[in-house]
């Protein structure tokens, strides 16, 4: 017996096992026809098709059972349940976003402090006053480690050449100007501004969804009462 036939028979047996009670006869019918199918590849295709049919029928049977259970639920209760579901999803979403934002913010803050101290030291020790100082940060999400490269630029083109040699993949810019020995003016990368800008909007949207969920729950209870 060829491997295609053996595979077909295995699939046929699997479809028999998967078949819901109401479709067991049909699964047996498809399996029984397998012997009559001419050609090994055709038999394999037949078994694959049969398995697909049984899988879909099994899914349909389960959905139908769920649907029947849903019909017995009263409308206010259904509304409350949907509201509770929305509420839980909103809480999860908000928690995930807040955690992400907190992580981004915390490592960014630490890196920023490191850049300021080391860069200031280097500028002071060298006695140079570059008009543009920059640092590029690489953040490895898996190890949560930040790698930093500093650069003291006299002009933007030499900065770009250096950057192309070193920076690839995920990196973020920190720019600052040093106009006086003790004065540091920060300018965040636009991407970072976007990051920080997202926090309040996530918060607002999350709160909005929370209010919606709570409102639906309350409405459901009120109608029920």
């Amino acid at each position: 017996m060829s491997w295609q036939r053996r595979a077909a028979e295995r699939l046929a047996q699997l479809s028999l096992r998967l078949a819901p009670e109401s479709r067991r006869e049909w699964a047996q019918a498809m399996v029984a026809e397998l012997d009559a199918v001419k050609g090994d590849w055709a038999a394999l295709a037949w078994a694959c098709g049969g398995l697909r049919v049984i899988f879909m029928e099994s899914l349909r049977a389960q959905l139908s059972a769920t649907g029947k259970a849903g019909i017995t639920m009263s409308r206010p209760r259904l509304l409350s349940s949907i509201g509770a579901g929305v509420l839980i999803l909103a809480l999860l979403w908000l928690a995930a976003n807040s955690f992400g934002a907190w992580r981004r913010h915390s490592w960014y803050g630490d890196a920023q402090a490191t850049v300021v101290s080391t860069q200031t030291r280097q500028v002071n020790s060298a006695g140079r006053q570059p008009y543009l100082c920059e640092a590029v940060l690489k953040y490895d999400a898996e190890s949560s480690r930040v790698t930093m490269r500093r650069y003291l630029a006299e002009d933007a083109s030499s900065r770009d050449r250096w950057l192309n040699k070193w920076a690839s993949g995920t990196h973020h810019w920190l720019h600052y100007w040093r106009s006086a020995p003790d004065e540091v003016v920060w300018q965040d990368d636009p991407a970072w501004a976007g990051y920080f800008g997202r926090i309040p909007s996530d918060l607002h949207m999350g709160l909005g969804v929370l209010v919606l969920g709570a409102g639906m729950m309350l409405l459901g209870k009120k109608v029920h009462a």
Partner: protein
Amino acid sequence: MSASPRISAQTRAVLQAFLSEAAEWCYGYQISRQTNLKSGTLYPILMRLADARFLQTRWEESPEVGRPARHMYRLTASGLALARQEAGSMQKPVTLRASVGEAGS
């Protein structure tokens, strides 16, 4: 349950195949070869037709020892009526075109 199933082109082809051998019992593989439909398409159609009582089913023991019994199918009276109705509805556009052609000639 006697609700009409959704009549797709494939369902029509299956009905047509049964109609050509109205009095005979057919195997699934036989219908599959006549209609060029694969098992994944054919069997859902057969199931719906049987659910709607347009199709009769029975098991036939294999004459060869060790072979499984095979499932066989035949149109019921209402299935036959549906198949004829569908065959008729498929011919309608042809009739219309023919009448237009006749009017033009």
